[in-house]
């Protein structure tokens, strides 16, 4: 039983979905309760992962490895390291909170709605724990269809457009990624004489740089569309804006992380030479910086509250990719932490839009104003989320952004300089948004009698806030969890990095731990 912890975590949501399908569609309360129970169970069964995780161990833990399709060399191969652990926990918690937040927001086709969320939950967890590329690809694609339906059936006015755009974009990326995967698979056969999709085996490949570059670009398109990196981001504002609140939360908090995770788990370790190729690194950094600044500038211009939050994701994910391609421990660890942070803060921001939308059925910023007078608790939560997103010290965003900037500074000072402007702009659009919606006098009479947060909404926000505070005040455990995998990753991409580091500056301890004490 305990040997199959990852499988249990993986399939609990799916099992919950199958039971859900057997419930009578007419009994809405029962369906709601069951979906929440299943999602909560999904979170609870994932908690032992945290306690059982060994921070000091190298490589993957809680590994499960069985033959799946021997004819193709495909294995059912699961395992986690620090990076996957954090993302899995983010998935199970945010997945549960997203389902909880839908209680009153959704009234149509409830059964299908919750079924889609639970199915998607299994797909996302699978992406983060698969150590077999084929298995990974299957889960990667499994996520697509439920999200199509979530946007397409329960979305806003332009849902059809947004849903098909999301589907086409991501699918175009993933089929090219598939070609990259198959190239590695075939190269492995050429070099070692047997077909396998196992990551650990594919790591033994030694490919010419030209081929590595091609594969890198194939992966890049798949992952960059998912992240989304500039200029592949155009699906994101539509999808995030039109999706129902819980869908936006899942999209922003988890789905986008599949892209960054792909870079960390596959692009860097499998293609180390292409990953430090100066031209590629420069391009990645440039695209990240463009995303940071462009995303922030576009956010400033939005008059739609939800669209603003959506574009802010482009900016924040730019930090994550910049951190990855700084290719040093600070950059990468910061990137992973920032991925979690973005999940927390942007998840909250979308939930906040959702709360306002449920009461007023408009997303236009100019329809609001002065809400702090009628909804004090709500405005407090919003302030909290906004500051966490803007990177206020003592809250989570600061830790991530600071560490990324440290890494970027170490890699190239100009990158850090550009990225800092992104932080300033970020503060600007968030504070201005807050001012326009929450502060001042109530100008619209419809806003005079809005109910404040109810108990369930508090229950959704509190875990987010607690987590944000934890990371903000005491991030050390996170850096500890990440230390081994990140070090391994950097060593893989830049062999001898740590030896040179300690030789040159012996006094300077690991920057990650430094930031941890801040």
């Amino acid at each position, binding site marked *: 039983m305990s040997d199959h912890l990852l499988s249990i975590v993986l399939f609990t949501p799916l099992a919950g979905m199958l039971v859900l399908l057997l419930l009578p569609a007419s009994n809405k309360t029962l369906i709601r309760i069951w979906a929440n129970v299943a999602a909560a169970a999904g979170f609870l069964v994932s908690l032992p992962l945290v306690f059982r995780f060994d921070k000091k161990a190298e490589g993957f833990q809680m590994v499960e490895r069985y033959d799946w*399709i021997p004819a193709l060399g495909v294995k059912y191969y699961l395992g986690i390291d620090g990076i996957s652990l954090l993302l899995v926990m983010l998935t199970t918690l945010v997945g549960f909170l997203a389902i909880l937040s839908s209680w009153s927001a959704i009234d149509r086709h409830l059964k299908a709605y919750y079924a889609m969320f639970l199915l998607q939950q299994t797909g996302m967890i699978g992406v983060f724990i698969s150590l077999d590329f084929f298995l990974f690809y299957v889960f990667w694609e499994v996520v697509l269809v439920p999200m199509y339906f979530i946007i*397409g059936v329960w979305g806003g006015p332009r849902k059809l457009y947004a849903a098909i755009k999301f589907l086409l974009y991501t699918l175009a990326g993933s*089929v*090219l990624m598939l*070609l990259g995967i*198959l190239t590695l698979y075939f190269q492995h056969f050429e070099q070692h004489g047997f077909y396998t999709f196992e990551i650990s085996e594919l790591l033994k490949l030694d490919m010419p740089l030209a081929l590595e570059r091609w594969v890198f670009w194939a992966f890049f398109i798949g992952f960059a569309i998912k992240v989304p990196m500039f200029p592949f981001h155009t699906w994101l504002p539509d999808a995030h804006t039109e999706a129902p609140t819980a869908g936006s939360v899942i999209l922003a908090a988890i789905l986008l992380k599949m892209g960054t995770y792909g870079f960390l788990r596959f692009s860097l370790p499998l293609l180390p030479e292409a990953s430090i190729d100066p031209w590629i690194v420069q391009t990645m950094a440039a695209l990240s910086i463009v995303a940071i600044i462009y995303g922030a500038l576009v956010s400033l211009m939005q008059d739609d509250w939800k669209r603003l939050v959506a574009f802010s994701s482009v900016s924040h994910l730019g930090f994550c990719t910049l951190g990855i391609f700084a290719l040093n421990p600070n950059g990468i660890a910061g990137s992973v932490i920032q991925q979690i942070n973005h999940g927390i803060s942007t998840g909250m921001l979308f939930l906040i839009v959702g709360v306002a939308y449920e009461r007023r059925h408009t997303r236009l910023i100019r329809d609001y104003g002065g809400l702090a007078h009628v909804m004090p608790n709500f405005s407090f939560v919003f302030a909290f989320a906004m500051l966490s997103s803007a990177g206020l010290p003592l809250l989570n965003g600061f830790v991530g952004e600071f560490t990324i900037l440290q890494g970027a500074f170490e890699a190239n000072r100009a990158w850090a300089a550009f990225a800092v402007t992104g932080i300033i702009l970020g503060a600007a659009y968030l504070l201005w948004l807050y001012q326009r919606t929450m502060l001042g006098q109530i100008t619209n009479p419809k806003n005079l009698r809005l109910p404040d947060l109810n108990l369930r909404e508090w229950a959704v926000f509190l875990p987010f806030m607690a987590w944000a505070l934890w990371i903000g005040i005491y991030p050390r455990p996170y850096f500890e969890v990440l230390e081994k995998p990140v070090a391994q990753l950097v060593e893989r991409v830049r062999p001898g990095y740590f030896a040179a580091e300690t030789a040159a500056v012996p006094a300077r301890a690991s920057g990650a731990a430094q930031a941890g004490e801040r």
Partner: protein
Amino acid sequence: MSQFYTSTDHFVLVPAIMLALFGCAVLLFDFFLFPEPRQRKRLVWFLIAGEIFTAAALWRQHSFLVSEGLPELTAFQGTLTVDGFSLFFNWIFVAASLLVAIVSWRYLEIEGEHHGEYYGLILLAQCGMYFLATGTDLITLFLGVELMALCFYVMVGFLRERKRSNEAAMKYLLLGAFSSGLMVYGFSVMYGLAGSTKLRAVAAAIASREPWDPVVFLATATTAVGILFKVSAAPFHMWAPDAYEGAPTTVTAFLAVGSKAASFAFLMRIFLGPLETVREAWEPLLIVVAVLSLTIGNLAAITQSNVKRLLAYSSISHAGYILLGLIAGNATGLKGMAVYILVYAFMTLGAFLVVVALRRENLIGEEVDDMAGLMQRSPGYAVLMLIFLLSLAGIPPTAGFIGKYYIFLALLETGHYVLAALAALYVAVAIYYYFRIVRSMFISEPVEAPPLASTFGLRVALAVTGVLTLVIGVYPEPFLMLAQTSLIR
């Protein structure tokens, strides 16, 4: 001169005898035993019995090959060859005929054209298919293709009162006859080169010549065009959308699956047999055909509002994918063709069966809009259709992905990177039109419509195709082993 009709000859011929015998028997029984229209649906039991006997004969062939450890068994001095390849395809034909036959009676009754010949024609068409998969002689192959095509000409025009059906049959007949003419011309040139109609002799004659020898090229080109007509690859696809749309839907399903699979068996026998040595001459030609099929099939499907027509264009694009396996030409590619044809058979049949269910009294139900809100009216059918469409698009974990997987891998292995990228990107195009149907079923508001014409046979057939489409996607191992046996040695 060897003995005329040996026991081996008989052993190889038994499945064809069974098919022909039961096919004729159905015609007679229809005339003598069941004069009443209501009784005709009992004829399906005769068809099932015929298929059981055929399957038993095929199984005996299979066990014989396995127990003797033989790669193949030839009969009639090399005219027919039973091998893993022929058996693999024949299993597909048996499955396709059975699945089509058990859903037909209700559909044909609604159309007012439920006649006993229908079942006889299915069996006789399958008899033609048997010779296409088993034949290793130009004449045998030609007879097989003509027998199959003649049955289909009749079946496509089965709705005698309908203009559309008549038009479809006429177009199919004219273009089919034209393509057969071209093909048989190519055969005659091959015969001229070899002085024999046996594929082995033709192969030897062609191998002794230069690949760009004008006579060989003439034979290759005309034969190729003839066969490509049959598999409905662009630019020889013009008949397909009309024939698919006009034919009774059950016939469309059989045409799209049985005829396509048989024609591909035929194509592989010719291209991997006599024409293998002149690969450099036909490979560029096939690349053009495959790319055109992908392009025309996928792009034209986008604008279709009729589901049958849409699936017709999609089947043109699938022909393109299967041809890519032949272009790659290595073991992965050939195995990929077999796997692709297998999964194509079940997912395409499934999709057409859903369309069959949509035909009700006073409602044709073939338009994309007719599916509006199907999820609320008949969730089972909607979910099954979703599975078939995802599989057609090639999304894991459905069967279609396994087929595409092999094709992509084979292209990468043989260095066709551009083709691989193109083929992969067309998946994203395809998802667009498949998801038009999905959107209609799941997102559009339901329209007022009578309940679906569901029969026990239809439910069985849908369950079989749906389960196989999922099982091949999730656990393909046994099916890949089966496809492995199909490689021509």
